[in-house]
């Protein structure tokens, strides 16, 4: 009786002990001719673990990418939630449990997540260099070719680029400050009207100020230097201390994320929001989240630009399908759609002058949208990322010492 009741509970556990042979790894698939990779991928499902926090990104994936993958390659794309450290955790646990066949075949990653995954050998590869569309990638760009100073080394394939920008309402603040120094003056003159979030974007803003206050990004380039960091942090935190009484809620509270920033900005509690995507001032205004008169602002001291990538886990059940998806994401068609302000407005990783003229013209018409920050302005003030350790330390120290 007991055995009858318990058997169905235990059976799956026992069955999982009898392991099937592991699926071919990404590096193995990368050695095959592309045609046979595509053939292997046909009729399969690709589970893509990604950040699902933005409805416009989700809509692009679910309603534009997925149907095309199904029509062109017979691939069913399943986007599931998971980002940053959760990915590292999940794969670590899968490895501890001896799962040679994992759950996800594709991951959306960059920076410190890529670093952590590589350090623990949780990524498959190298594979990204064999994608046919990889020929179009802008390898000259320091933003695309280095991921927080790390060499992607074929373990991740670039997907998009973004640059940090402040967002202001031109109707409310017709003459916004253009440098960090002017911004500090403005904050003191308008107490309670400025803050930053405590998530990734806020720390990225502080990191760009860390560069600006300490002789530029060069001070921190070339790996983590504890002495340079501590000296830089002292200057940055001195500025933050002097600004604190003039921040929203006198600096005793900080919004949890960018969505909370947008809400405070739209409701008129603060005068600046921010985003890790230079075009979000336009996309969020089009969606009615923030006022229609919102504009992006790139401080002349420089703002941080970075690229984001897709990687394949060491135990991906469907590495072939994942590679076909990664290749599709690099096609001019998919890159252009992603960059449209009405879709997501995520920057391309392609070298535009390598594209056929008709594609180039289409990209130009999107990039030269008058509501966006001009491309050459963005380029002029773009600063690369430094070792992810700086971001880790700054986040940790800010949480413990400032917040």
């Amino acid at each position, binding site marked *: 009786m007991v055995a009858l009741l318990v058997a169905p509970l235990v059976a799956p556990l026992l069955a999982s002990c009898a392991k099937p042979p592991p699926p071919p790894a990404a590096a193995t698939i990368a050695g095959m001719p592309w045609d046979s990779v595509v053939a292997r991928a046909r009729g399969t499902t690709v589970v893509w673990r990604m950040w699902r926090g933005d409805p416009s990104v989700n809509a692009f994936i679910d309603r534009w990418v997925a149907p095309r993958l199904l029509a062109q390659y017979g691939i069913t794309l399943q986007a599931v939630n998971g980002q940053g450290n959760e990915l590292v955790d999940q794969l*670590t646990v899968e490895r501890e449990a001896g799962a040679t066949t994992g759950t996800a075949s594709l991951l959306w990653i960059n920076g410190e997540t890529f670093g952590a995954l590589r350090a623990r050998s949780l990524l498959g590869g190298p594979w990204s260099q064999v994608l046919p569309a990889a020929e179009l990638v802008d390898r000259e760009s320091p933003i695309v070719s280095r991921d927080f100073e790390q060499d992607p080394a074929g373990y991740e394939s670039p997907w998009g680029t973004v640059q940090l920008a402040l967002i202001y309402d031109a109707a409310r603040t017709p003459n916004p400050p253009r440098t960090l120094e002017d911004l500090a003056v403005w904050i003191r003159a308008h107490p309670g009207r400025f803050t930053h979030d405590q998530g990734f974007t806020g720390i990225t803003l502080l990191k760009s100020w860390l560069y600006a206050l300490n002789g530029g990004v060069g001070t921190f380039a070339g790996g983590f230097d504890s002495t340079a960091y501590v000296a830089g942090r002292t200057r940055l935190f001195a500025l933050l201390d002097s600004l604190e009484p003039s921040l929203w809620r006198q600096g005793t509270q*900080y*919004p949890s994320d960018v969505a909370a920033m947008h809400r405070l900005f739209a409701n008129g509690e603060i005068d600046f929001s921010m985003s890790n995507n230079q075009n979000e001032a336009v996309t969020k205004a089009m969606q009615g989240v923030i006022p229609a008169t919102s504009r992006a602002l790139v401080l002349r001291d420089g703002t941080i630009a970075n690229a984001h990538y897709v990687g394949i886990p060491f135990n991906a059940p469907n590495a072939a399908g994942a590679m076909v998806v990664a290749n599709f994401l690099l096609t001019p068609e998919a890159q252009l759609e992603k960059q449209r302000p009405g879709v997501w407005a995520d920057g391309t990783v392609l070298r535009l002058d390598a594209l056929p003229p008709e594609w180039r013209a289409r990209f130009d018409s999107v990039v030269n949208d008058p509501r966006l920050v001009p491309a050459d302005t963005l380029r002029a003030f773009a600063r690369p990322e430094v070792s992810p350790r700086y971001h880790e330390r700054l*986040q*940790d120290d800010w949480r413990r010492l400032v*917040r």
Partner: protein
Amino acid sequence: MSACRTTGAGSCADVAPRRLPAHHPELVIPATATATASATATAARYRAVPLLLAGILLGLPIVAGVGYSVAGAMGWVGTAAPGGLQRVLADVHVLRAVVLSLWIATMGTAGATAGALLLAVLFDGNARLDRLARTIGSLPLPVPNVAAAVAILLLLTQSGWLSRLAVQVHLIASPSQFPALVYDPVGVGIIVAVIWKELPFLVLVALSLQSLRGSSLTAAARTLGATRWQATSRITLPLLLRGMAPSIVAVFVFVLGSLELPLVLAPSSPLPLPLLIQERRQALDAASHGEAYVIALIATGMALLAAVVHEWLRDDA
């Protein structure tokens, strides 16, 4: 045994001695004369199966979870670095998180309990107003926690509905003068949300207790000369509180560990326990991950302590 077979399993259970929990030995109801020793043994075996199943289904995950947390805290599994325990015990942020979470859970549970008692005592009749009040009291039950949190956000922030109303009627000159009730260090917004969300659950418990108990005790007290207030404070309230105690503890423990309301409404400093656990668990620096397990174990200990205190008070009563 044969008598059991012929009359069906239901009556078998009926003839088994029905024991109330061990601390009420005087209340053991003797088995009827028809019961035999073998029937008792069969019944015991029937009860052993669900007990074993419950043990496996409920106990195993808890043991596994606590075991993994301990291993994670020590840095034996997962991504954590060792030394988490020492760091957590010396961390003032953890202490502040414990205090804030206890404060929110205590105030939220106390508020919801008081509201439920008030509703059950004042509106226990059959008049239309009574029924209306009870319906309103149980209305928020199906509202998801996240929706409740967003509703509080729209209502109570400095740019919220109440703030704008206060400006309209010239109570304050500008929305920024409205008191900071959300993202505030004492958690007013979360406490209001907790009360609103947990009230209906306790109202339903209180009302079902009321209807089970009937009004005979109160009526007897009134006949013997007790005032209405005396009958309420000496009979109704103590009986209700006693009956509601397990539910009150359940609410307290749930609020202590629930993530949704703090996620939307909590201050950034201090952080409530669930958010602090999440933050340390997701920190970029892997050294913090072990701290998350230690804090999770502290939170589990607090919940267990609440259950133990409840058992202890029950034994005392």
